[in-house]
């Protein structure tokens, strides 16, 4: 064997280790997290489109993907429309109904309240809303709404179940039922979607029961 091919084999092994490094780290971080994840529920609307590579999924449209504040956040990036689709972080809190929502937003997670779980999201835009009911008559005050996109917008399901899931979700929306998604929020700002609930029942359970 030529010397150059021996070198190539060594480099190839190193490249394979490098290629496996990220997947292995991901598996370890989800299977054996150093800090147990916080389970949070979000109210969603769903429909079932198709991904040519990864198959069918339920597209999750999160009900409230913005945060409204009395004061403008002191962060240049969040004021610029150029930062649209940029990375930012939101602190999450569960309300009295058990549904999670964002309570703070920042481009640096260190600026968020330390006692709340946080998540990496995609920043969209800043909206200035005139508050006509505010005290001061003509001196109307402004409120600031920061729109963002939650990263968990997909719930993957099996190919044969997808069309039925689509019909079930449409029917639930028509009847005014509720669809929730349960999400594990990890200490590093990552997440994994646990289950999709239609009227408090897991969607897979409903679909497989219909089968039987």
């Amino acid at each position: 064997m030529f010397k150059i091919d021996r070198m190539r084999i060594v480099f190839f092994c190193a490249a394979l280790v490098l290629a496996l490094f990220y997947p292995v780290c991901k598996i370890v971080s989800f299977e054996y997290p150093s800090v147990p994840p916080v389970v949070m529920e979000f109210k969603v609307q769903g429909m079932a489109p198709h991904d040519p590579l990864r198959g069918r999924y339920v597209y999750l449209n999160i009900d409230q993907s913005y945060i409204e504040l009395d004061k403008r956040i002191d962060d240049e990036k969040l004021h610029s429309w150029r930062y649209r689709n940029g990375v930012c972080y939101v602190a999450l809190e569960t309300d009295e109904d058990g549904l999670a929502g964002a309570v703070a937003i920042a481009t640096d997670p260190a600026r968020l309240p330390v006692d709340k779980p946080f998540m990496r999201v995609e920043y969209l835009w800043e909206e200035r809303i005139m508050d006509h009911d505010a005290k001061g008559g003509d001196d109307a005050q402004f409120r600031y709404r920061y729109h963002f996109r939650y990263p968990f917008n997909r719930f993957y399901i099996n190919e044969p179940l997808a069309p039925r899931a689509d019909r079930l979700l449409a029917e639930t929306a028509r009847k005014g039922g509720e669809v929730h998604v349960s999400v594990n929020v990890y200490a590093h700002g990552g997440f994994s979607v646990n289950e999709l609930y239609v009227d408090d029942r897991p969607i897979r359970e409903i679909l497989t029961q219909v089968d039987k």
Partner: protein
Amino acid sequence: MNRRQKQFEWLLGELPGFRAAGVIDESAEDALRRHCQDECGKTAASRRGYYTLAISLLGLVLVAGGVVLFFNYNWDMLGKTARIAVSSVPLAIGAVLGMVTLSTGRGVLWREASALFSATGTALLIAMLSQIYQTGGSLYDFMTLTLLLALPFLYIFNSILLATIYVFAMFVMTGGAITSPAAGTLVLAGWAIFAAWHLGAKASPYAAWVRYLTLPAAVFAAIILCEWRTGVQLMTLAAIMAAAGAVAAAHGVPAKQNPWLPVGAFALGVLLLVGGCRNGFFSADDHASRQAIIWSQSAFWVAQLVYWLLAAELVRIERRNLAPVWYVIGLMVLCNYYLVLGDDPETVGRIGSNVIAAVAGLLLVINGVRRNSSSVFNAGLALLAGLVVCRFFDSDLGVLWRSAGFVASGLLLLAGNLVFIRRRNHCSEVKNV
């Protein structure tokens, strides 16, 4: 059947006639016949090799696609561990193929298949993990990671197929790369080193294809690195491409294998004409992010260095011929220093573009006449005519004057070509005499 093979087959058919006419003797006929048959065989074998490669790769892709769809349909039957194991199969196949290829010194098909399986296997495993753990993720992050992890396989297997896919896959990360160009630049640099390696090697079979692949790569570079003072940066990029094409042509690269010169020269001409009339072409983009400005400026200084290295090489080779043209374009690139750093670059940029287009056009015409080269002559004429037409569009002249201008430009092109052809014919007649 390609042209070369046709020529050899024609010669084979003519050999008995040559022999009968006494042009060649029996031994010469035998030697020529053997040579022609060998050449025809070689061409056919090489063509068969490419067909086999293409069909085999298509087959591999279809088999892989079918397997993916099969598991996709039955995905819920498998547990999490089994799903991860199934998702790792393409990478495992890539690993085995790669080891066999490298340890037994296999040919092109094996190298390409190993690179393709290893890179796509890695991409598939990452994509499937996000599906298995329901973690979502952005396409930009996914493509950045996948392309960076594909780079080692590209180099180890010297795979032109993976290099081609890599270039076009870069465009998937365009949206994110504009807001944060660091990762985009890194991905681009990884490919640029591969391209430079092939272009620098004396006998690389992929050099011509790599030159063509450089065109989409340059478009990607323009998208992610020309966010600030776009006109100035695009002009420098086009000047680099034209100069690199001229260097390649001077080193004997055939025109068909050298798309840089026509594409770069055309882009440069268009940019000069646009720069001469459009407001805001040379201004700073106030909305560009600080990061985009820093990356744009860094790219600009690197581009300046590259241009001057190429220009120095051109002046060394073409001292007497086209050197003045490169001096003028170099002057434009040099003026860009002012346009980048100056406070009010619009007027200077507009006037400068017009002057440089006019001088470069005239120099090309003169050089075309001197060298009897119709392509150089017509390139100069086209630049001058384009300049006249564009200035008529954005001037305050009436329709009558504009029509006269268009007629004059058209006549200039026609008359110029007529005079040039007559002169060339006259020169060839004198040479023959």
